[in-house]
């Protein structure tokens, strides 16, 4: 009960998540509750979950990263190109993969640096800076690929395992996601850096006067966001055995949705990794569950919207109740 009181927003998300799971399970126990379906959902969660965490860290500072999916796809394109061309030139597969990982990582960091530079040094508002870079990155990706997919199907048995392999019923990518979520939890919520991150979101001016280098912090935030993009694209490239500039495009808005649904304040300063992860799971449960019922995708979008509004409403009502109670207790004393 104590945890519920301390984390009302996350608690609301947990209740919704569990409720949706139970309802789906009651409605179609023979399909929804099968190990097949559970494992299929676990395959779908990691790439989206990691992107959502990459969005969350930026939103925590009160910013937003609209170039998220293009940072991911451009660094994925670099990886796919390196693997395809080195593979064709007859290099050892392990060598190709390592080179691809290094170059893809470097690319993601480069793109993240540009975002960080614009926001931290040029003081462009994050929404404009990343809107600009998202177009720039899309253009880079289109130029590199000429709009088509870069296929690396010859790496399906080794590199592809990152996205398609599984241990028992649990996908390898799920382990990666769990690892990243734990890493994010400690980094955002259990380190001095994490405390500064939250402070930066609630009051950047106060943070500046308290002797923290705001510019450096912002740089780091956009780099971490790019790091998460790289990890997400690693899974995506492996899962689809190819990369294209618009892969994962639709995760852009969904990542913002998951972050806000998970209780993170869109103005920054408050947000829990657990909430975002729960929101990601909830969205996946809904998407898979409703798909199983053969529901029209437009209704799925409507339901997602309704759930988001519902969660926001719960948070609003709870906030009112809480401040009312505070006021009462203050008057009583």
């Amino acid at each position, binding site marked *: 009960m104590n945890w519920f009181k301390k984390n*009302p927003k996350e608690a609301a998300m947990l209740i919704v998540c569990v409720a949706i799971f139970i*309802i789906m399970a009651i409605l179609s126990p023979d*399909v929804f509750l099968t190990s097949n379906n559970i494992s299929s959902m676990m395959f779908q969660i990691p790439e989206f979950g990691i992107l959502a965490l990459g969005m969350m860290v930026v939103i925590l500072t009160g910013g937003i990263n609209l170039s998220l999916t293009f940072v991911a796809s451009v660094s994925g394109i670099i990886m796919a190109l390196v693997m395809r061309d080195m593979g064709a030139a007859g290099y050892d597969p392990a060598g190709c993969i390592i080179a691809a990982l290094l170059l893809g990582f470097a690319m993601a960091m480069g793109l993240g640096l540009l975002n960080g530079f614009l926001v931290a040094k040029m003081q462009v508002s994050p929404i404009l800076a990343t809107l600009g870079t998202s177009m720039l990155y899309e253009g880079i990706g289109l130029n590199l690929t000429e709009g088509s997919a870069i296929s690396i199907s010859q790496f399906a048995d080794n590199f592809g395992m990152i996205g398609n392999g599984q241990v028992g019923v649990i996908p390898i990518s799920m382990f990666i996601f769990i690892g990243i979520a734990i890493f994010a939890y400690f980094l955002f919520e259990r380190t001095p850096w994490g405390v500064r991150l939250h402070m930066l979101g609630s009051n950047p001016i106060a943070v500046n006067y308290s002797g923290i280098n705001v510019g450096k912090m912002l740089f780091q935030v956009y780099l971490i966001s790019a790091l998460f993009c790289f990890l997400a694209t690693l899974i995506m490239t492996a899962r689809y055995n190819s990369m*294209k500039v*618009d*892969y994962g495009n639709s995760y852009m808005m969904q990542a913002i949705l998951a972050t806000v649904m998970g209780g993170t304040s869109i103005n920054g300063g408050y947000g829990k990794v657990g909430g975002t992860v729960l929101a990601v799971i909830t969205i996946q449960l809904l998407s898979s569950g409703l798909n199983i019922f*053969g529901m029209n*995708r437009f209704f799925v979008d409507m339901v997602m919207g*309704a759930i988001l509004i519902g969660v926001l409403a719960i948070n609003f009502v709870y906030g009112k109740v809480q401040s009312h109670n505070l006021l009462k207790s203050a008057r009583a004393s």
Partner: protein
Amino acid sequence: MKKTLVLIVCAVFAITMALTGCSTASTSDTTAESSAPAESSAAESSAPAESAAAESSAPAESAAADDTASDTTAASDSDITVVVMPKLIGIPYFNASETGAKKCAEDYGFNLIYTGPTEADATQQVKMIEDFIAQGVDAIAIAPNDPAGITPTLKKATDAGIAVIDWDTAAEKDAVLYSVHQIDDQEYGESVWGAVLEGMGDATDYAILTGGLEAANLNGWIDYGEAYKEENYPDKVLVQDKIPTNESQQEAYSKTLDLMKAYPDVKGIICMSTPTVPGAGQALQELGLQNELTVIGSGMPNDSAPYLKDGSVTASYLWDVENLGYLAAYVAYMCATDQPLEDNLTIDAFDSPIQIKEDGKTVILGAPLIITGENVDDYDY
């Protein structure tokens, strides 16, 4: 305790919204008509439960919705479930193919799920296919947004014993049992070129507008058409290399204006890709060149109707999109029930038999559908 109660009430409210959405939507996706009234009554019965106490409403709702689910399955005529997935839903082209696919499901009595992403994103298609693999459907017909990216998932589906075919756009050849094509590329190219070059009469100059220089299907048509021209109309002159329009009507419009300024003697325009047809029509209409030129391309009836009617565009060579959806569902159903397909296959709903190419995989819908100013209103897409 009060706070917890508030939380629960809100949660139940949110879930009720989700469920109401659920029961309305399933009507649109099942072939069974009889389930519709049962569903609406189920949805109604859950409505009063909303206002009841939070604790008691939860089981009542799920019971009502449970009825809904069993109704939909009980009313189906067969155990075969076929998924037909377009590139995206909610555009006229794929709405028309949905009509056809549904007709096929009625004719042959199987469950049809016609659904796709709301954006043309390959990752969303992969997600949905994975859900259908988990659900254990019998066949999937997919119009892939990206052939390469979807291959691992299609292989997964095949491994799970699901019959996989593609339609509208080809997937990778090894990944599918059959590939349903709207048109035979060679036949299409030759008939469009033949019609334009013939329609020009003695004039020699013609031009080609294309969606983009990279589009494989458009380039295929153009290559076949040009080869046909070399052989049969060697005296005709292509005034300029094929002109890319970036799949945009606006660009096709301005490029046509430029073209007519640079080459006023052009008497034939071939428009490959759908937006180029209304684009060229708009330009010629503005220049007052109705009925002066022979303009033929793959235009969508609704977009091109005004230009077809006033003669800015001569004709649109397309295919019957409804029949395409019908054929996709039909082939998928045949695969799901292990019935072999034969060349010159006759389907009751179609006028002409269906051809299968020598590779035994490519199923061709038939000859191009010629849409002119007279019959354009018969096609609503």
